[in-house]
């Protein structure tokens, strides 16, 4: 069981990368990029985890109770919000591309005139 988080992380990264490599549509590619990104969330949260520890919130538990790492959680938290905004930016680029060239297939794209 101790290998499962790393395995999930590798699987997410690999399946996302495979999707990017074989992508035939830019919206699909942006979705795959989000999958790759979520692999980093799993990796960071798994690194911060500790058996028998609670959340790093000392409201019910007094300070000093074993808690997981708050630093990686803070990193993941901001990353998720920023990731969503950057995905929106990429989708706007895809929209723009479709308007100019009429296609979102990387194969069919030609250099812009």
């Amino acid at each position, binding site marked *: 069981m101790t290998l499962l988080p*790393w395995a999930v992380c590798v699987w997410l990264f690999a399946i996302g990368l495979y999707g990017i490599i074989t992508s035939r549509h830019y919206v699909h590619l942006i979705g795959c990029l989000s999958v790759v990104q979520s692999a980093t969330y799993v990796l960071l949260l798994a690194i911060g985890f500790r058996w028998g520890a609670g959340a790093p919130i000392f409201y019910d538990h007094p300070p000093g109770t074993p808690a997981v790492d708050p630093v990686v*959680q803070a990193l993941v938290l901001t990353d998720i919000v920023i990731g969503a905004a950057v995905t929106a*930016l990429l989708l706007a680029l895809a929209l723009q591309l479709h308007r100019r060239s009429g296609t979102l297939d990387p194969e069919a794209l030609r250099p812009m005139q």
Partner: protein
Amino acid sequence: MTPRLRLVLLALALACIAPALPAVIGALPVFGSHPLPYGDIINRLAPAERHVTNMVSAVNFDYRGFDTLGEEMMLFVAVTGTAVLLRGTRGEAITALPATVPGRQIPPHSEALVLTARWFAPVTILFGIYVVLHATVTPGGGFQGGVIIASGLLLLYLGEGYAGWRRFMRNGPLDAIEGGGAAAYALAGFGPMLVGAQYLQNVLPLGSMKLLLSGGLMVVVNASVAFAVAGGFGILFVEFLEETRAEDPTQ
């Protein structure tokens, strides 16, 4: 580049990385053993130093406050870039006319959807505000709460339809909320410098633990993040939904 060529390139890259993989996998920490010291130091010191109970917020808005300012600017730039890209070709004209595809009817507004959205949108926005306000106390903060408030705004769109939604989702106020939030974060950092402290140093009274106003400068920074995130996602929704509108026939 054909998919086959791309796969060959991937295989070549993997062949280059493969020799190093066993060493990396072998060096991974055992899951649950937690080798990093910084989180433990913050867990030990922050409750006494900053009078807050939520360590994640303490990291985000205080100990790593300067990094979060950078992330805040990334959000700001991404939202600005999206708005510029979409408005650049569409223009700033606003029309409530839905774009139509020949041969496809626009379905009528379902009353069940309106009722559900009107029930859930205010509750969602209220919950978002609750999450924002409790940033330093219980799980929550400006990032999460801001996104929850923004999803409430999207629910309002589902309930009210585009024209009704745009009556209060105005470009000007949304831009002001997004930019004002980002600016408030950066300017809040200069506040401590007026009294001779460092940029973003927490010089405000810390308050007592488990109260909403605990954490000093964190309260200000958290609120500005909430405004920037809620406003930023509001702008994104408006910009993408504006794409579904027809060209204004009067222009």
